[in-house]
């Protein structure tokens, strides 16, 4: 009887190991597939127009065209674009995450009648197709004198990402135990203090998550930049790519190099921010 039990136990253990092993292999295969695009992009950036189209995507070019990077750095205005991308993305992400946290806090934690209506207003904001907004927004910025001003894209990014950010934050705010605030208020904490000292730190993981999502969206956006910005000195990296698209042909190698250069900072920021998804949790649970 006991023998049989142990056999069953051993079988279970083996089966568990096999499933685990299988799971691992699967995870590794998916990981390899997911990392290939980066490798491809890098190789792409070292090819010339002929090689881009005719070599297999992961083939090494015969003689790597490092010159593509030189072209990009010297002929394009890339340093300026780069800085603009950082400034615009950074400010819009900060503004969005902060404003969205305020709103989500007010909607989920504070008591007022119109909260559902306000939430509904934000949700509808997700539903308009971007291209419908171009002409009205152009007119608006023209009238208030923000045309060809970086503020126009920062504000637009913030407005268009607020609904999404609020929706993601919402699900997490509902899981914060009420006792947390009650205790804080008992201690004589003001609402502001509570928000900044307790709520924001507790929601740090999801704030980091939304920051990553916002960052990626803003960094890669180009329709608004093209429409509202005309001076080269305010343009961003995504627009820089267009410099290599001609009327009848394009310089694909240079486009590849620009793409590689533009993905590096966001990769770095992503790694840093995504660490805080985990760290935030642990620090949050200590307090909770």
């Amino acid at each position: 009887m006991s023998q049989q039990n142990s056999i069953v136990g051993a079988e279970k253990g083996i089966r568990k190991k096999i499933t685990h092993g299988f799971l691992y292999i699967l995870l590794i295969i998916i990981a390899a597939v997911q990392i290939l695009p980066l490798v491809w992009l890098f190789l792409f950036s070292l090819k010339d127009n002929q090689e881009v189209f005719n070599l297999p995507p992961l083939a090494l070019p015969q003689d790597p065209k490092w010159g593509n990077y030189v072209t990009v750095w010297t002929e394009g205005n890339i340093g300026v674009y780069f800085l603009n991308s950082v400034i615009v993305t950074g400010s819009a992400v900060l503004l969005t995450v902060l404003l969205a946290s305020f709103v989500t806090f007010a909607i989920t934690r504070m008591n007022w009648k119109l909260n559902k209506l306000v939430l509904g207003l934000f949700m509808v904001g997700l539903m308009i197709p971007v291209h419908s907004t171009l002409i009205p927004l152009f007119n608006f910025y023209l009238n208030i004198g923000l045309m060809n001003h970086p503020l126009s894209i920062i504000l637009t990014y913030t407005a268009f990402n607020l609904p999404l950010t609020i929706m993601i934050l919402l699900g997490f705010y509902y899981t914060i135990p009420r006792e947390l605030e009650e205790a804080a208020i008992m201690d004589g904490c003001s609402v502001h203090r509570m928000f900044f000292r307790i709520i924001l730190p507790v929601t740090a993981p999801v704030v980091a998550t939304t920051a990553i999502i916002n960052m990626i969206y803003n960094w890669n956006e180009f329709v608004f930049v093209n429409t509202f910005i005309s001076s080269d000195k305010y343009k961003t990296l995504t627009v820089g790519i267009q410099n290599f698209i001609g009327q009848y042909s394009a310089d694909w190698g240079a486009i590849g190099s620009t793409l590689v250069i533009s993905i590096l900072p966001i990769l770095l920021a992503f790694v840093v921010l995504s660490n805080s998804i985990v760290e935030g949790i642990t620090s949050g649970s200590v307090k909770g």
Partner: protein
Amino acid sequence: MEKKAFKGLLALSIASLVTLAACGGGNSNDENEATGATDSEHNVNEEPKEEVTLDFMHLWPWGSLDIYNKVVNQIIDEFEEINPHITVELELLENEQYKNKLQVISSSNQLPDVGMTWPAGFMEPYVNGEMFTPLDDILDDGLRDDFVTGTLEAYEMNGNSYALPLELNIAPVFYNQAMFEEYGLEVPETYDDFLHVIDTFVENDIAPIALGNRDRWTGSLWYMYLADRIGGADALNSAIDRSGSFEDERLIEAAEKIQDMVDREAFIRGLNGLSDQEAKSEFMNSNAAMYLIGSWDLPNYTTNEEVSQEFRDNVGFFKFPVVEGGEGDINSWVGGPGVGLFVAENSDVKDEAKEFVKYFVQEWDKISVEEAGVIPGTQVDTSQVDLPDLFIEVLDELNNASDITLFADVQMSPAVAETHLNMIQTLFGGEVSPEDFAKEHEEALSAED
């Protein structure tokens, strides 16, 4: 070592920034700093004129393949030197984004002082909306005669000219001479010869023609040529200008021939999902023997150092073959002007803007062929220019052309063009009968009346 390299790069990029600013790429403050010294000198020497800024929006960014951009900047520099009180401010956008932005800014009547437009159908809403100003006054003092007949006319509406053409193209069939030789093939002069060439390549497992029909206007070129060779220039033109009908037998026959070619596997596999660029690379890597494209592609087969010398030496071109019994002439081409310069109607510096476009086309015509490989809208004397042979041959053909039929999608209004381009893709995909193909066109065209 690394540091040094970085510094070098930095210096280079700073240098390019300065050049850009000097070319009018930056904002006006930067320019004043960079060129402040020369400005004040000019001001001392010449009678003071009011400082004006000209906004100029174009679609030739400085990506390294595009020599156009350098020529543009060169002309602007010269213009600014002659007119020190005028500063030209540039805004550059890529093709699609350019069209997009032009419409958005027009809705608020905010066009730049000078910009680029395409002729005919594209231009129509802008002219109807009184966005462009007529340029006849600057054409009338002799400039008009410089242009090749038919180019300026493409920018005419209601008896006025609204833009000055910068480029003129015809579409030859480029072919790989080495591949033709290998199979003992000669340049086809008739459609039957042409089918023989196609069949020979197919038998030898070689794709005869590279065609990227995802872009749709590429397939339209093939249809237009067949329509021209079967029905003469008149058949298609009269269908579009409504003096005739698209359900013309000759236009239906042209559609039948397209499908016959598709059935013979004349074109590369998966053509409807391939972009023109992808198709072009099949030709340039000798995977396909022929490629029909506008003469704007000539630098690729002559001067572009990135393309192997061997391949460039192998490229020739031929005129689209005649169809036996057809009304078409072998010297009739599909082509037409590309972009032209417009001056905005509400520009507050209209005089300077007109002066600028006039100066621009005159200079452009002098240097564009040799410097940028662009065929301008004006007559080019091939004995006077220093160009590769292939280039000269195409220019000679252009000068001898009996007729140039404007690209159908340009000729038509945007809405009809969209139907046309969609039907072209459907025709090549074998999903519509030639009769229905013509019928759909006829319906779209008559809906516009």
